[in-house]
Every structure is written in structure tokens, then in C-alpha cells.
């Protein structure tokens, strides 16, 4: 039976132009979305490169200034920006702390449109006030991006629904089911084979178009394991929808009813479950109010400024290492500022951490419940694969905070020792290197999806007894 179904299914699909239509559609959708993704990644790279170039340029002028000052020449810059002052370097010559795109970043925009990909933390800036959001029109954020992940998560199931909703019902409606059902074959098995064959052909089309598109877009140091992850996710997600179509074909009835049921399931899995989960996550683990955080922050700052001198004394007592070589005992604005900033930061840490813990809780909660919708599983995995998930940006944020801490520390010893910044110190400036998260969790996601699909298929075969008793055409 499989052999004949295979031969004739292909013939019918070719003659009814399904294959041609699907190929064209897939090529168009994958092509357009991958191109969009690629464009975004390119822009991101160009922006980062430009920022880094700018730092190189300003460093050159800084070195020139230093050289002039060191050789005792007059310089035209404002006195407080002259880089012999360590705080001038710390504030006016920041490094680019960039999150370089991962090789698969073009697959899913994820949170990449919300967050910025490079910041330049200065010594006096507040870490928690660092604005990690990107300057984007909110309309764009609202509409989202037409990326590969969107095509896979939202549109592919719809294509599958259109491709498979009436495998059995169309036979019933056209009348050919009567002849078919009078053959000594199991209709269930026949429907299964038909759907598996359609799954097979669609997979072939998806894999070829996707690989073609990826080759055209050009994945840099061919990260094929990640490409396989992407294909694996797409195929297992497709299998899930085909299994659902199998069940609906067996149990629902007329073509229209099938289509409506499958569509209802699509709305539930792709639109409703995620938004309800999000709503629940927000209700269960509400984010503390940011506006109230501002109040708190400012109150603490006022306090700290009032106690400035006391703070500085305590600070230097607690951290003698900063002033170990200081013989001048000079105190400037920055001595006070940096010390009280550190105190404020420590005091505010619990408030700021509350956001992270809450976000973490939301995340782990939604990770636990993601299996309620395969759409979430796939979207999250694609985000992970692309390095654009919430976790990735959190990881980046953590690294930025750590870097700006070390940047500040680096200059604190200059400041409290009242030493000048010299040309040779330039090479010792802290450098940032972004480390991406290791685990993507894609294999696990694929396993979950396959398990879901198998359960559905099993369900289709398990409840066989009941319908066999009633007969195939009974309604």
C-alpha cells in the first residue's frame, strides 16, 4: 500500500499543483524572512564595527593629547576632559561593550529589536540606570518582525492545515471514499500513510528551500550543527501539526468542520496559550513598579549626598587598597562621588535584583509550562539558537555590569591614589569580550515535540476499537 500511495500521492500533488505552489510559497516566505533577518544582523554588525572604530579614533586623539601634555605642551581641550585625569578617561573614553551576533541570529529577531547591542558604560554612570533598550519605533516592536521564526511558528502550521485538513473528508465528499473503504485495507492506516507522505514531501520542500535560503544568506563559519538544530525543530514542529491533522481527519468529519477545528487549535496553541501564560506569569510574579523604583532610588541618593563626607571616610577605611600609594590626601568631587555612588549602588542592589529575580521566576515558570504549546517551545528554542532570547540579553546585561564594575575599579585605584593617567596605561585598559550562553536546549525541545507528536499519533491508533465497531461511514 505504501508504495502505491507514495507513487500516486506524488502524482496527485504534482497534478493539482500543490507541490509547485508550496515550493514557491516556501521559497518566497523563507527567502523574504531570512533576508529581513540577515539585514538586521548586518546592521547590527555595522553599528558595532562603527562604534569600535570610533573608539579607536578617539583613543588615537587621546594618546595624542596625553603625549602633548606629557611633553609639557599646551592643549586646547576643556581642563576636565584632559585624559591625564583618570576620571576623564573613565568618563570620556569609554569602551564599546558589544554583544556580537551569533551565527544564527538571522533566524529569530527574538528580543533583539527591544534591546541594544552595545553600550559604553562610564565610571560615573549608574549601572541600573544604563538603558539597555534600543531606540526603535514602538510600532515596530508592536508588529514584530517578519523573520524565519515567524514563518516557522505561525505560518508553517497554517500551510500544513491547508495541506492536510481534508485528506479523508475530501474523499468522503467527492465519493471516492466508498470505493476506497470497500478495499481490504485499514482506512486509518491509509490516512496515516497519506499524511506521512504529505509530511515527507513538505519536509523535503522545507529542508531544500531552507538550506537553499541559508546558503544564499550565507551562514558564516558554517555552523552546521545549528542549522541541523533549526531543521530538526522545524520538522518536529511540522510533525506535531500533521499528527494533529491526523486526529482531526479521523474524528471530526466534513472538510469545513476539520478546517475550523484545526484553525481553532492553531489559535489556541499559537495565539491564546502564549498570551494567557504571559498574563499569568505577570500576575503570579508581578514586576515591582519601575516608577516606584525611581522614587526609592532618588530618596537613597539624597540620603547619600547628605552623608557624603562620612561615606567617603568609611569607604576609605573599608577599602584601604584603593588609596595605598596616596601621599597627597587630595579630595576632589570625584572622590566623594565615586564612594557615595558605590554605597548607593550597594543599598539599591536588593531593589534592582528584585526585577531580575522576578524575571527569572517568570522565565522558569513559563519554561515549565511551555510544553502546553509547541509554538512556545519552538519560538523559545529558535530564540536560543539565534542568541536573541530573554536569557541571552540577561546574560549580556550581567556581563556589562561586571565589565563596568571592573572599568570603575580600574580607575578607582588611580583616583584614590591621586595618580595621573599616562600613555602607557592605555594598553592596560580593561577589554570586553562577550561570551554567549552555551546550552541552547534545542535537542530537548525536539524530543518534547516528537513526544507530543507520537502521543497524538498513538491516540489516533489507540481509539481504533470504538470506530471499527460503528463502521467507517457511520456518523
Amino acid at each position, binding site marked *: *500500500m505504501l*508504495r*502505491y*500511495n507514495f*507513487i*500516486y500521492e506524488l*502524482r*496527485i500533488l504534482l*497534478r*493539482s499543483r500543490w507541490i509547485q505552489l508550496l515550493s514557491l510559497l516556501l521559497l518566497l516566505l523563507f527567502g523574504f524572512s531570512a533576508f529581513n533577518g540577515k539585514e538586521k544582523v548586518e546592521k547590527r554588525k555595522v553599528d558595532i564595527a562603527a562604534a569600535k572604530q570610533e573608539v579607536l579614533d578617539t583613543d588615537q586623539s587621546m594618546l595624542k593629547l596625553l603625549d602633548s601634555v606629557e611633553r609639557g605642551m599646551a592643549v586646547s581641550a576643556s581642563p576636565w576632559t584632559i585624559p591625564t585625569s583618570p576620571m576623564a578617561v573613565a568618563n570620556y573614553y569609554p569602551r564599546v561593550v558589544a554583544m556580537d551576533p551569533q551565527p544564527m541570529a538571522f533566524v529569530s529577531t527574538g528580543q533583539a529589536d527591544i534591546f541594544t547591542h552595545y553600550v559604553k558604560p562610564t565610571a560615573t554612570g549608574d549601572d541600573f540606570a544604563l538603558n539597555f533598550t534600543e531606540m526603535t519605533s514602538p510600532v515596530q516592536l508592536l508588529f514584530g518582525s517578519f523573520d524565519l521564526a515567524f514563518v516557522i511558528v505561525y505560518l508553517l502550521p497554517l500551510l500544513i492545515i491547508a495541506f492536510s485538513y481534508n485528506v479523508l473528508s475530501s474523499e468522503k465528499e*467527492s*465519493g*471516492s471514499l*466508498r*470505493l*476506497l*473503504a*470497500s*478495499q*481490504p*485495507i*485499514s482506512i486509518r492506516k*491509509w490516512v496515516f500513510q497519506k499524511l506521512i507522505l504529505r509530511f515527507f514531501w513538505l519536509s523535503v520542500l522545507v529542508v531544500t528551500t531552507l538550506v537553499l535560503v541559508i546558503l544564499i544568506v550565507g551562514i558564516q563559519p558554517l555552523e552546521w550543527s545549528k542549522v541541523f538544530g533549526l531543521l530538526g525543530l522545524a520538522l518536529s514542529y511540522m510533525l506535531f501539526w500533521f499528527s494533529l491533522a491526523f486526529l482531526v481527519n479521523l474524528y471530526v468529519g466534513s472538510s469545513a468542520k476539520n478546517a475550523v477545528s484545526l484553525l481553532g487549535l492553531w489559535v489556541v496553541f499559537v495565539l491564546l496559550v502564549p498570551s494567557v501564560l504571559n498574563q499569568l506569569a505577570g500576575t503570579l510574579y508581578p514586576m515591582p513598579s519601575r516608577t516606584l523604583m525611581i522614587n526609592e532610588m532618588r530618596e537613597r541618593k539624597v540620603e547619600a549626598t547628605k552623608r557624603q563626607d562620612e561615606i567617603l571616610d568609611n569607604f576609605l577605611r573599608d577599602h584601604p587598597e584603593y588609596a595605598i600609594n596616596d601621599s597627597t590626601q587630595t579630595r576632589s568631587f570625584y572622590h566623594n562621588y565615586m564612594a557615595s555612588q558605590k554605597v548607593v549602588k550597594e543599598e539599591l542592589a536588593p531593589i534592582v535584583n528584585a526585577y531580575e529575580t522576578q524575571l527569572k521566576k517568570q522565565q522558569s515558570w513559563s519554561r515549565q509550562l511551555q510544553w502546553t504549546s509547541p509554538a512556545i517551545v519552538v519560538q523559545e528554542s529558535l530564540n536560543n539558537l539565534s542568541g536573541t532570547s530573554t536569557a541571552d540579553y540577561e546574560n549580556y546585561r550581567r556581563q556589562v555590569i561586571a565589565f563596568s564594575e571592573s572599568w570603575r575599579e580600574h580607575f578607582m585605584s588611580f583616583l584614590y591614589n591621586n595618580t595621573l593617567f599616562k600613555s602607557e596605561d592605555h594598553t592596560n585598559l580593561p577589554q570586553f569580550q562577550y561570551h554567549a550562553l552555551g546550552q541552547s536546549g534545542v535537542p530537548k525541545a525536539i524530543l518534547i515535540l516528537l513526544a507530543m507528536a507520537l502521543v497524538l499519533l498513538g491516540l489516533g491508533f489507540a481509539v481504533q476499537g470504538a470506530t*471499527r*465497531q*460503528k*463502521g*467507517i*461511514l*457511520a456518523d
Partner: protein
Amino acid sequence: MISTKDLTKKFGDLTAVDHLSLSVKEGELLCLLGANGAGKSTTINMLLNFVAPTSGSATINGLDATRHPIKTKEFITYIPENLMLYPMLTAIENLDYFSGITGRQLAQSSLTGFLEEAGLQKDAFHKRISTFSKGMRQKVGIAIALAKDTKVLLLDEPTSGLDPKASNEFGNLLQKLRGKGVAILMATHDLFRAKVVATHIGIMKDGKLVQQFVADDISLPQLEKTYLETMNYKEVLS
């Protein structure tokens, strides 16, 4: 070959087939006559296990059709009132497909042989079914029966909507199959065709088999009279 015993089907309150017992042996052709709703199609559907009987049994070649639906279908060919095939495939492809999925691989030559034997014109072999008339489609159905080497043929109003010539051709085909020892059960309203092709004739009313004849024992006018009398049962009594 085909036999039913006290075969009964109820749809809720309605008894569509009521304790029906009949038997068709090899080489016999039983025509079931009866008004719309008499239960003819339901009987055939139960033989095919399209609907499960409420009680009683239907057997094909000695096997219970309800308990072994797939096994019994190996002996059956069914031609519904309006035989539909795959419109996107040609006649020969349809034949190949329906034989193939049941595990019968046939060479191209035998496929054309069966179509020829079923009386389809040669130039139609490679045409898509979407261009076929009902008569032509039925010929493909017969070719499927031939290819399957069928033992039982179930026909549901096969001649309705056929022109007299096509209807006659179809009758001749049935005679040929009967000659090969196929047991045929045919539901029809067409008294004339029944008289011509049948070996046995039964009249159904309200799910019951109310009259049964050997076809040769009765003339066409007699058959028509009996049929009408049976249909207007109550009026005749009063």
C-alpha cells in the same frame, strides 16, 4: 458466497433493515427491489461493514463481515450508485492504484487487458477521470473487480442515470462476471434491468424482504404487478 441471517439495523427508532435473511451463491445475481428508504443500501453497507449491524450477521465467503471487515473485503468489489474515482488520475492509473494499495501489483499489459475486458474504449485509458461519464467510470469499477478476481460484487443502483445503451452494456458485463462464478447482489429500482440480468429477485419493504422469486419463474408484467401491489400494501388490503 453472500449470506445474511436476521440482519437488523436500527437508526434510533427507525428500523432500516429488519431481520433480513438472504443468500447469494456463486454465479447467482440477486436483485433487491424496493422503494427509496426500503433498506437496500443499508444492507449493502452492512456487508461492507460501513455500518455495523444492530443484530444478526452478514457473512461473505463464510467469514463474518462485521468481525473480519478487512479479510472479507478481499473478496468484494463494491460499485456505489455514483462511483467516484480520482479525477486527477487517468483510468489506468486509478485501476493501478486501487489494485496496488491492496497489494496486487499488475503489469501494464494486464491493466489494459482488464480495462478492455470491462468494455472501456481504448482511447480513454489514458484520459483523466474528470472527463469521464458515469457509465465510463462504472466500467473502470468493473475493471477493478476483474483485476481483483473478485468473488462478490455489490452494486447499489448501478443503472440509475445510465442511458439504455450503457445500461444494456452494463447488464452484459454482469452476465459475463456471473459466468465466471461471481456472486452479485444488486440493489435497483429498475424492474426491467432486474428481470433481464437477475437469477433471483427480492422485494424489500420497510427493511423486510417481503417477496422472493427465481427470475425465470416470473414474467416482467407479473413482476411489475407484484411490485406495485407490495408497495401499496395497505391500500390493497382496504
